[in-house]
């Protein structure tokens, strides 16, 4: 899953989260495939960002999966003797790998 600005959205991308309005009402459900018309409509009602499946947009300066995993390693490097935190690390690592899978 990737969080992108609506300006980076393109047709064919698939929503990974519901798009909701300020009151929390669902405007457009998870799993919806974006079309040009839909993107225009979302812009019109001032939706600024959406979450889409995979990792379709390459952001300049963004960390690669490898770098993200290294960052997790470093963050947890001083608590390797604490089982609950190692469990957390394991889950975050797994999540990161799944999130980046295209």
């Amino acid at each position: 899953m990737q969080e992108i600005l609506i300006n980076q959205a393109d047709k064919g991308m698939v929503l990974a989260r519901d798009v909701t309005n300020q009151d929390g009402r669902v405007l457009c459900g998870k799993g919806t495939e974006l079309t040009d018309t839909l993107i225009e409509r979302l812009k019109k009602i001032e939706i600024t960002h959406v979450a889409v499946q995979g990792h379709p947009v390459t952001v300049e300066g963004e960390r690669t999966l490898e770098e993200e995993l290294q960052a997790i390693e470093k963050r947890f490097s001083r608590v390797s003797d604490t089982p609950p935190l190692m469990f957390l690390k394991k889950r975050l690592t797994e999540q990161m790998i799944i999130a980046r899978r295209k």
Partner: protein
Amino acid sequence: MDDDKRSHFRKALREIKNLPTLPGVIIKLSKMADDPETTAEQMGKVISMDHILAAKLLKLVNSAFYGFPQKISSLSSAIILLGVNVIKSLIISASIFDIMEKQDVELWEHSLGCAVICSVLAKRLGVQDPDEVSTAGLIHDIGKVAIQMELPRENELINQLVLERQISRRDAELEVLGLEHAEVGGWLAKSWNLPKKLVEPVASHHDPRMASDEQLASAIVHFSDIMIRGLGYGHGDDVWVPSLSKRAWRLLDLSPEDMDQILPEIEEKLWEVKGFSLDIQTNQ
């Protein structure tokens, strides 16, 4: 570290001058809250005299860490729903973070994220006032802001130490000032007459053993700070996940299954807060 120096910094931080007006509003509200005759409407009116403050407050109230199903549009309903203590802390946060949003977005996001996790944990553990716990999470690092504002030279030195020696910010603070930001935050919260429920978790977020009356709330803020760092919302060059208090962990009593249920919930809410934080930044 000689005691003279330590007490000098202590004094400087206690007499904090540069923090944005912990405005007359706070004092007024505290007085009003003590008077049983005061209505929420009257308090709402006092706050709304400051338009910007009122707008910010409503924004915070409507953010993901309180998670009311409907939008709260009036200050008086916010006061009724959240209680005076939470509103007071939110006013403090709104004024303090006003600077942070501009100068230190990272710390602002760390604080919001910590509040989100506190809210998820507090609700799951059935804490009586989950909103107060998330508010404690929101303000847990106010001591850092105080040090940044009041002792900019020393703060620079602290940053340097963190980078050069690869030590935690807390250790660098202890070395430079002889005190650390949790302690400072605790004094501040106390000097603003916030209740123990907020003061203790702020003061003991590195070492929840220091908490006496509010052990569970302190354990929640302690672990939320750790988790949000684990998720990558740290602060500056101090990126390491700090050590977890065994006692706090026993108190929280979270199983791996609990963790697996909590994580997606947190991720979901962090996403909402991210939108919220972007929103604040673009609306300036």
